[in-house]
């Protein structure tokens, strides 16, 4: 009796295990491949970058055309509080963006001047490492993408980003959007967002909205691999700053002074 029962239990157990194998396999085999599958070759050949000419930017005081353009087309809500603020591009005083450039004795007066900051689209983006679901990842052309469909809202990417480039939707943003731009989705509460280098516009051969909106032509955008591109020409033989280059994130947004 003893032996029989044991034998039966063993067989039953093994059968059960066998039955779970197929669905188990199905579940795991359905998982998408680790890296987003090869992007079109066109993308892989490019490496988008941006240059900000600070002197040109400062020539018009209190201009915020680039911010308005970006926030309008991306449906960035204006929540009116610092606590829940969402921003893709915003001004920060020079001395805070570049704390390593001490200006004490240089006689220059620009340490309080605003510097436009956005997501640096790092070449070695820290945020990507931390995301538990690959909701954020680096595309072949260097754009650090955000998939709002997949973000679970753990905010670990925000902890990972040393530039504070990421914002979180603390509440449903839709009531705070003045006029919804139809071609870009709004976001739900509970997901993280940031500048995407106007990936949806590049796709249609348009320049990023901020670059297009700047009357002073302070912003230049283009393919860093192409010596003839706007961004490369803007950077040529100039003094270039990057934000916190010592962290090894290799930002692709350059500041020219």
């Amino acid at each position, binding site marked *: 009796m003893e032996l029989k029962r044991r034998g039966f239990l063993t067989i039953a157990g093994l059968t059960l295990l066998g039955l779970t194998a197929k669905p188990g396999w199905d579940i795991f085999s359905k998982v998408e491949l680790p890296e987003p599958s090869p992007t079109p070759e066109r993308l892989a050949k490019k490496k988008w970058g941006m240059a900000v000419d600070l002197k040109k930017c400062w020539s018009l005081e209190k201009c915020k055309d680039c911010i308005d353009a970006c926030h309008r087309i991306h449906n960035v809500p204006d929540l009116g509080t610092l606590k829940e603020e969402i921003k893709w591009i915003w001004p920060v005083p020079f001395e805070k*963006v570049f704390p390593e450039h001490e200006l004490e004795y240089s006689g220059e007066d620009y340490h309080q001047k605003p510097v436009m900051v956005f997501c640096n689209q790092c070449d070695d983006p820290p945020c990507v490492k931390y995301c538990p679901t690959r909701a954020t990842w680096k595309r072949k052309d260097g754009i650090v993408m955000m998939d709002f469909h*997949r973000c679970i809202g*753990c*905010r670990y990417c925000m902890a990972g980003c040393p530039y*504070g480039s990421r914002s979180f939707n603390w509440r449903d943003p839709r009531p705070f959007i003045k006029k919804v731009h139809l071609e870009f989705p709004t976001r739900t509460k509970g997901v993280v967002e940031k500048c995407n280098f106007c990936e949806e516009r590049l796709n249609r051969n348009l320049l990023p909205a901020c670059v297009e909106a700047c009357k002073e032509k302070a912003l230049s955008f283009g393919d860093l691999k192409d010596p003839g591109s706007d961004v490369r020409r803007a950077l040529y033989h100039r003094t270039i700053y990057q934000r916190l280059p010592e962290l090894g994130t290799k930002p692709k947004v350059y500041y020219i002074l």
Partner: protein
Amino acid sequence: MTDKREKILGEDTVLFEHIYKTGKGFYITVSILGGLVLLGLYAYITQYQEGLTVTGLSRQIFWGVYITNFVFFIGISHAGTFISAVLRVLKAEWRRPISRASELTTVFILMFGVGSVLIDLGRPDRMLYAIRYAHFRSPLLWDICSITTYLTVSSICLYLALIPDIALLRDLGEKREWFYRILSLGWTGTESQHRRLDKAITFMSILVIPVMITVHTVVSFVFAMTIQPLWHSAIFGPYFVVGAIFSGVASVIVVMAILRKAYHLENYIKPIHFNNIGIFLMAMTLLWFYFTFAEYITIVYGNEPIHMDIFWSKISGKFAPLFWLHFVLCFIIPLPILAIKKYRTIRGTVIASISIILGMWLERFVIIVPTLTRQRLPVEQAIYIPTWVEWSIFIGCISLFMLLYVLFTKIFPIVPVWEIREGREKAVSQVGERIRSYLPDDKG
């Protein structure tokens, strides 16, 4: 019926009293805890509907009470393993009456550690994406793996050590006999069954120790792997493990004192237990201080502006009250109490433990929050004041933990009866033999 009980349980009848006798105290406790759990539930529903805007969290300080709770609760869960597994492996005989109480603390509080992260999610409806689209470069995935393993292994440990007692309850044949019959897995207490159980428990105990160490190490890695000032530290792994055992053991002392009082276990959980565990807690206090000191002195000598900003915000800035309070609670108060034999009484160790528990919660808080106020880009007006929602959920979690604990003691004995018996019947002579084996052999 009492005769049968006497016959089966012998002199340990009092250990089963809390299962069969339900007093007024039980109903009062359950209704108070139940009420608080409902409050927490209400708070969570509010948060689920409105979004995380109902918390005090902001764009700058985006992690707060929930993540503190996550680290804190998982820290406490290290107690059970330490007391039941480590002491078992070390053959410390005094562990017997308190092993189940501590294992139970581990299993239950661990669930709230996991729960705290889920509460913190912006899109809790998508939480399974972390498994479906698992990205193993993310330290959060390491946490998921490690914590689920720990929960499984420690649940098995708890259950294995329950089997002989469940069989006792089955033999009593009073309430819920069918339930105990199923769970007892046909235990009859034969010699071979005992041998197998012993083997299984020893195996699980040895297995659970490295798992425990990985758990808090990877919890600390969530912070240490980022490049944020004062998080990016190589000693965070061991520092967090030490802090976890520290707070966990303190919680077990408090649990022991409550159980002793509520269930009249004075004869089982004795001052000697508090004394022994108190000595260990003192050692942990010193070890904790050593790590804290090593962590901060390294920062000070490095003198990097970004690190120093946050360092000063803790030492003399806006986090100074919390920082110094946590230091007093974790070190200044408990150390003398635990170090001086006269004060290492039940009351003394309980006071020291409560102080440590509060202090360690604050420690987690002052590790997590100040770093966020000024990351590399200084932000003005970064204030974080937790709201009623966060406090209610916190209280709800703790109440639900206690409620589960209370309900567990209504079904199972909290002192492992068979281990006590084993101690009485076998271990006394075994220990004598063991000591003899340490001594020089008799010539002759």
